[in-house]
């Protein structure tokens, strides 16, 4: 498999601030990669280094095997869609779309033909002679996309392009961006702080925190096998519940620091008496009729949030837990809830290092 983009040991300092700390990512041709993390984690900085808008302190960036680390943006043949779209306000949609072509010296007629072609793909048909200020948010977004597509670049970079759209349009554009990526056979790097966007769109998700890659892999790998507490809490919605616990004498169950000291068994084996943090996903907590089924606990109810299809129950415990239940009228009035969990879905993390704990012995 040929690598389209390769980042090797990228380090970036802003003065004394260490913004990127040894980033390694290998992106094969045609892959859709999402960089995700909380604000200030360096994901946008990393994207800008690929575009050439930021220089890096050390490391190498290769595109199709060619080292472009020190090249200016214009020689990199990469297109970028900005969060604010960055449409040129003094140019019509057509001029915006064809700006890069005109710089390359493409003839006027050829540029016009291309612009019409792109307008047809992105649904901008009648808008070529409008100015950006005369367009709606969604239309501007399409122009920004079109401006990237028209160049047929080696890679597409997206910097939170959907964050300025309203919720309904965002879900729609999510699918549209992904469809476009597939039809063009493009290689894309997509920055977002929204883990749902990352999970639904990407082939490969890179979770970053404080300039470091915490984990990267296929979306479901990250969901099923988070390497530490941060990734576990970041991926998945609503977020994973974390409870302190102590491994019991048997070594395959854990006593939770909750009222009544409930004990849950987990898959595998850990040293007895170990202090751990237990991670339980809200959707893995199954509401059951009674506690006879085993591996269950009873939780007092504090708050019930209905979304229609799902009901989120917040418990009156310390720490608060969230349980995702299917819609049921009985839950709305329940004072307490019996939940059961599959031992395979009990996650354990080291309480100090926050690393995920694997079974021993």
């Amino acid at each position, binding site marked *: 498999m040929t690598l389209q983009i390769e980042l090797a040991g990228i380090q970036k300092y802003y003065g004394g601030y260490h913004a990127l700390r040894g980033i390694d990512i290998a992106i094969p041709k045609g892959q859709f990669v999402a960089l995700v993390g909380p604000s200030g984690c360096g994901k946008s900085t990393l994207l800008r280094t690929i*575009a*050439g*808008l930021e220089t890096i302190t050390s490391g190498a960036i290769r595109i199709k095997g060619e080292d472009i680390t020190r090249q*200016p*943006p*214009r020689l*990199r043949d*990469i*297109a*970028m869609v*900005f*969060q*604010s779209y*960055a449409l*040129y*306000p*003094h140019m019509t949609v057509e001029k915006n779309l064809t*700006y*890069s072509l005109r*710089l*390359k010296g493409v003839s006027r007629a050829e540029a016009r033909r291309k612009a019409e072609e792109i307008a047809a793909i992105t649904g901008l048909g009648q808008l070529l002679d409008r100015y950006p*200020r005369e367009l709606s948010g969604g239309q501007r977004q399409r122009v920004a996309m079109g*401006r990237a597509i028209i*160049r047929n670049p080696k890679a597409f970079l997206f910097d939170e392009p959907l964050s300025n759209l309203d919720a309904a349009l965002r879900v729609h554009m999510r699918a549209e961006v992904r469809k476009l990526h597939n039809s063009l056979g493009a290689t894309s790097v997509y920055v977002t702080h929204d883990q749902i966007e990352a999970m639904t769109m990407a082939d490969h998700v890179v979770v970053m925190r404080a300039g470091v890659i915490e984990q990267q892999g296929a979306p479901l790998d990250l969901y099923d096998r988070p390497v530490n507490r941060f990734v576990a809490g970041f991926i998945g919605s609503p977020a994973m519940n974390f409870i302190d616990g102590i491994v019991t004498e048997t070594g395959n169950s854990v006593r939770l620091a909750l009222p009544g000291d409930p004990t849950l068994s987990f898959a595998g084996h850990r040293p007895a008496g170990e202090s751990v943090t237990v991670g339980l996903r809200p959707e893995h907590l199954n509401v059951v009729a009674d506690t006879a089924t085993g591996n269950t606990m009873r939780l007092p109810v504090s708050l019930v949030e209905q979304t229609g299809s799902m009901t989120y129950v917040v418990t009156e415990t310390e720490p608060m837990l969230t349980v995702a239940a299917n819609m049921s009228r009985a839950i709305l009035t329940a004072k307490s809830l019996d939940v059961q969990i599959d031992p395979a879905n009990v996650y354990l993390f080291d309480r100090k290092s926050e690393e995920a704990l694997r079974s021993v012995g």
Partner: protein
Amino acid sequence: MLSSTPWKRWLLLAIAVLLVAIYLFPLYWMYVTALKTNTETFANPPTLWPHHAELKVARVWNDMGMGSFIQNSLVIACGTVAIVVLFGTGCAYGLARVRSVWMDVALFMVLMLQVLPPSLLITPIFVAFSQLGLLSWPRTGTILATAANKLPLYIVLVRAAFTQVPRELEEAALVDGNSRIGAFLSISVPLARNGILVSAILIFLQALGEYVYSRSLITDRAYQPATVGLQFFVGPNASDWTGIMTFAAIYVTPILIIFVLAQRRIVSGLTSGALK
């Protein structure tokens, strides 16, 4: 917010009209005096409107050789604007884009230059120009001195215009395949166009009114601008006030027209709400 009660609005309007009248009175007096005869100029009490209006434009123009004065004024003003726009635009852009303590220091120094009055600077400038032999090209010398004096104002105004242009637009241009200079010229400058244009006009008008440098650096009457030419009216015994005012009116009227046109442009720029 303007109050909705009518009498309050009328009162505010009346105050505004009164203030404008006070402010514009010298201008009015200049035009009126230009039309009066010499004797009427000294009439007591003064007449608000000339009884025997006479237009002396042609006489003053020919007697004073105003053609040469105005031509020199234009040469100096255009030269000044050219230098200021050429150097000031890039400087303003740099000050708007780079964020660092040293840029703040630079901006502060630029503002400090604005504080120093030409009459203070003229002596060292005269000495320096004389050493360099620049006094042999007095108009060039005046252009350089005036440009140096007006640059800070232009830089401060245009810097503000550039800070309004989002950085991402240039970055988009860079990624689209343009160079730094190309992005500056094809994206930033067109978007800051209104600010640049208005500032340039302002500098042009100020350069037209410049007196201290021209008076000190240009000794040959053939190279002097109209501001300096005005003083030839004042002799030891007699002062031709109506002639002076005619001269001034000839000089000021085109400036006023330019200013009114520029004003329209500023207002239309403000009301349309967005950069075009």
